[in-house]
């Protein structure tokens, strides 16, 4: 049986405000399944989120939760983790929240390799504000602020966070719930900056405007285009063109930030005596 996630949900706050067919709920549910498997302590886990549809997740999750300013969740999370390294600290963010306004905090958290789990709900659009393009909106797609087609290029967030210093980098998608659960399970077990890009569909503000059909069609698109890294690697360069690899893309064991700081404390204490 799938993990029971009810105990991690604030049931009185549900059903959530996400639109019918929005993939955010699927990601959140599977994050919780991964969490359930991790065996981590619910009372010792803090979820921090920014502003956006994605940011609303914190309100539904039965942990200590903090819903902050747009793009800044990682900075609050850093304070929490530094203050009390025993806590499991999770950041839920969006492609706008985490990669547009919050991009600097993302790369710096990666650089420090501080043990925070960053879950970026990538729906390719600013959902909450109703459809402006984000740094993850595909080039050529339309958005309310790109009426003639988006000329901006996307980040490859997994590449970016890895090159910034993240020690666990993974990509999943709403269409692949089992892979997601596994990614989350391993991500929660990792010690260090854990970046998980979770691709999700926004049928309302992205799909509809770009005539991608409803949620079901968008999921089918994901099925075709987001493929397991192993499979991806077996493809020719040409075949890769419109494909995105998923899975745990990178993992490394570099020393974690708060652990390093504990050593500073030890040194400073020593130097005092």
């Amino acid at each position, binding site marked *: 049986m*799938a993990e029971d996630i009810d105990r991690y949900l604030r049931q009185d706050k549900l059903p959530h405000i996400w639109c019918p067919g929005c993939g*955010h*709920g699927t990601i959140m*549910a*599977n994050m919780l399944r991964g969490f359930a498997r991790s065996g981590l302590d619910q009372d010792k886990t803090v979820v921090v989120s920014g502003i956006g549809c994605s940011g609303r997740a914190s309100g539904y999750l039965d942990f200590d939760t903090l819903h902050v300013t747009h793009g800044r969740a990682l900075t609050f999370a850093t304070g929490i983790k530094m203050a009390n390294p025993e806590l499991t600290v999770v950041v839920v963010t969006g492609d706008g929240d985490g990669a547009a306004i919050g991009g600097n905090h993302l790369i710096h958290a990666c650089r420090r390799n501080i043990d925070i789990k960053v879950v970026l709900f990538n729906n390719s659009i600013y959902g909450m504000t109703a459809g402006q393009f984000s740094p993850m909106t595909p080039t050529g797609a339309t958005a309310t602020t790109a009426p003639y087609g988006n000329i901006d290029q996307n980040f490859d967030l997994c590449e970016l966070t890895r090159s910034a210093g993240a020690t666990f980098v993974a990509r999943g998608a709403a*269409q692949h719930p089992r892979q997601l659960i596994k990614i989350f399970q391993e991500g929660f077990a990792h010690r260090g900056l854990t970046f998980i890009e979770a691709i999700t569909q926004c049928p309302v503000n992205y799909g509809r405007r770009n005539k991608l059909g*409803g949620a079901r069609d968008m*999921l*089918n698109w994901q099925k075709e285009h987001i493929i397991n890294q192993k499979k991806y690697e077996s493809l020719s360069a040409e075949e890769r063109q419109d494909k995105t690899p998923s899975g745990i893309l990178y993992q490394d064991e570099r020393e974690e930030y708060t652990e390093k700081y504990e050593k500073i404390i030890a040194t400073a204490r020593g130097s005092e005596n």
Partner: protein
Amino acid sequence: MVAKKGRVKVARPDWCKTCGICIEVCPVEVLELGKDRIQIIYLENCVGCENCELSCPDFVLKVVNEDEE
């Protein structure tokens, strides 16, 4: 120990937003959209694969042991 067979159940009917994702991911014919919520129409078809539970964005469906019902 033989694993018991799981069967889908509409655990939170009120939370269903009729997006139809569960229908899409179901490998056999089990579910169908009602007026304002999902309906199980051919429970006997259910293979307990959990696709619907894992994909539903609204925590509506659960696959439970047959004897739990």
